[in-house]
């Protein structure tokens, strides 16, 4: 078994090495070497966990349910994270030490709550949605302290809030016109990168950890969404449809050096960094099928 795992791992890294050596650094149509899943189902929200040994992601497992799944990178096996759950769960986020994770959970009609799970104490902090149609989005843990952030809409605007890991001490960090979404911290915890429509369409902004001093990193008439800092904090991966189709891009943390990584006529989205900072896991659509792929980052 261990021999097989080692072989599989070796094969994945050999593929990446070949891709880098040949200069074939993006996902192109027909390139199946770096495909991680094979069920073809609608997917979203992948994130590396367990030091890059696993990927947790979301799959539309049946027409009514988004389900959290865990992919074992060494043998390619997958299993539900919550085996008996029948409600939709999505947007998983993990703390840097792996002790906590958070996710969204559909509760009733257009009503979505957030769960912060302490795996050490086997205890949940539940943040219920407000009455009526309401729900949080996009949780992210602060790497240098016991807090997390998420987006939530009130009064027609979607703000960024922070809470402690018990779900208490709620503070509004970012309050601007439009919709703020997909916040995440820089690895040192000093900055937040997010998508915002404060100036019209979705662009990427950087703020201090307390939400102050917002700076615009992209200025495109298209959708620039789902930004994520690289593990060393020097780069940001994101999705954009600036070329007429959703593709994966990377830029320096100050917004310079924007570069397209994928060349696929179908959709590429949801970039998430591997802890080694040299590759991303993305959801890529090929021939109408959606699966997880590894994407080397030059």
């Amino acid at each position, binding site marked *: 078994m261990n021999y097989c795992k080692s072989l599989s791992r070796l094969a994945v890294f050999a593929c990446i090495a070949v891709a880098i050596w040949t200069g074939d650094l993006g996902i192109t149509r027909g390139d199946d070497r770096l495909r991680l899943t094979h069920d073809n189902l609608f997917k979203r929200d992948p994130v590396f966990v367990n030091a890059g040994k696993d990927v947790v992601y979301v799959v539309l497992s049946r027409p*009514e349910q988004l389900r959290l799944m865990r992919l074992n990178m060494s043998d390619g096996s997958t299993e539900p994270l919550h085996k008996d759950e029948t409600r*939709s769960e999505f947007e998983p986020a993990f703390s840097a030490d792996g002790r906590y994770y958070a996710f969204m959970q559909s509760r009733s009609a257009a009503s979505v709550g957030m769960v912060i799970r302490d795996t050490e104490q086997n205890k949940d902090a539940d943040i219920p949605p407000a009455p009526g149609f309401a729900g949080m*989005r996009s949780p992210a843990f602060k790497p240098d302290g016991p807090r997390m952030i998420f987006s939530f809409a009130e009064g*027609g605007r979607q703000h960024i809030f922070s809470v402690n890991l018990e779900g208490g001490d709620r503070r509004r960090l970012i309050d601007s016109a439009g919709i703020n979404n997909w916040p995440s911290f820089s690895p040192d915890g000093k900055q937040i990168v997010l998508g915002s429509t404060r100036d019209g369409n979705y662009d990427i902004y950087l703020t201090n950890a307390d939400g102050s001093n917002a700076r615009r990193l992209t200025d495109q008439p298209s959708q620039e969404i789902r930004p994520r800092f690289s593990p060393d904090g020097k780069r940001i991966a994101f999705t954009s449809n600036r070329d007429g189709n959703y593709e994966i891009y990377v830029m320096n943390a100050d917004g310079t050096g924007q570069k397209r990584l994928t060349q696929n006529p179908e959709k590429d989205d949801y970039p998430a960094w591997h802890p080694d900072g040299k590759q991303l896991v993305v959801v890529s659509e090929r021939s109408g099928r959606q699966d997880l792929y590894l994407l080397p980052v030059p």
Partner: protein
Amino acid sequence: MPLALGLPSTAQSALAGRSPRAKTVLMVWLWGAPSHLDTFDPKPDAPVEYRGPFSTIATRTPGVRFTDLLPRIAQRSDQFTLVRSHITTQSGHPDGGTVALTGFHEKPGPVQPNFGAIVAKHRGQTGDLPGFVSVGRGIIRDAGRIVEGYGGGTLGKAYDPFLINCTEEGKADLPALKLLDGLSPDRITDRKSLLGQIDKTRRSLEGAGIEGWARQYQQAYGMLTNSKARDAFDLTRESQATRDAYGYSTFGQSALMARRLVEAEVPYVQLNWSETVESITPNWDFGWDTHLYNFELLMDRHCPILDRALPVLLDDLSERGLLDTTLVVVISEFGRTPKINDRAARDHWPQCYFSLWTGAGVEPGRTIGQSDKLGEHPITNPITPLMVGTTIAELAGIDTQARAEMNVLEAGTVIDELL
């Protein structure tokens, strides 16, 4: 229902006496109600609390722009006509669904027939397949309540749609055969064993009074034992490239099945986006009812699926020469609030919404009707669901006299500009 006929319009008179332009009608039903502002009627110059986060892109129709969520459909705008001036009278889903699919309110009853039932009755039994087929996961509903206007209405249950479910992998499932364990079209290879299984089930149901099921069951039985009918549901007969092109979503593969049913000359096919309306609710299948996460869901899921499958469907129908005799209508029960709601999403808006029309001689590449600068109301003649149904009927060859004889679509007039 009292018999009070609408006066024939110029377009109706022009169509009178001709053979039907639409041998088949394909109704693409976007259940749950998509936001018109975020799709086909964007308002980029409206205030921030209205316009939403999406950019607009040019289409193949001069002066017409869609949001950038629909780049492939924008490149096909010369293949259809867009109507931007629909209104309806119901703001709730089940009632709104009935009005949109029948032209009339549910109450006071009796519930009027779905446009598909009218076409099916007019045509009579034409072949091996039913006259009205609904491709989707069951009778459309909002929570536990079905849309009363889904079926035969005053024409009787004999004109209810025959239901076919299609999975994201393209496997057909006939709900009428649910009581026959594990039976599906692709497993019917031995007629003898099928008959045995059906007899066994019939005996177990004798006296149970399941009349509606029995009719659907008989139809299903008839189709499963008829190779031509069975083939219509078999997507494995399509090339891999074709199946890929539609995309492996429930809607994508269902759209391909709908095209096969059109090809098999089913008079009326209703292709349902979902069974339930709500977009994010436990055990509901992600309809267009985006009271929450409107912008995210449109961007992440709904529009990519629609923007993949619909252009392929139109291309496919066109390349097979089917559009000349097939009327395609893409529509929902209403639109969504132009003003963004408290939760940064959009609620129900019956005062203004859109539809797409193509095929059966409808001149493509046009926009009919116009909404005001905020997308709140039509500023041209409003188009009602009854006008939609009457126009479909006229194009399917059901003229004023035929409608009167069936006692349907009373006082309906056609959308003149469309014809």
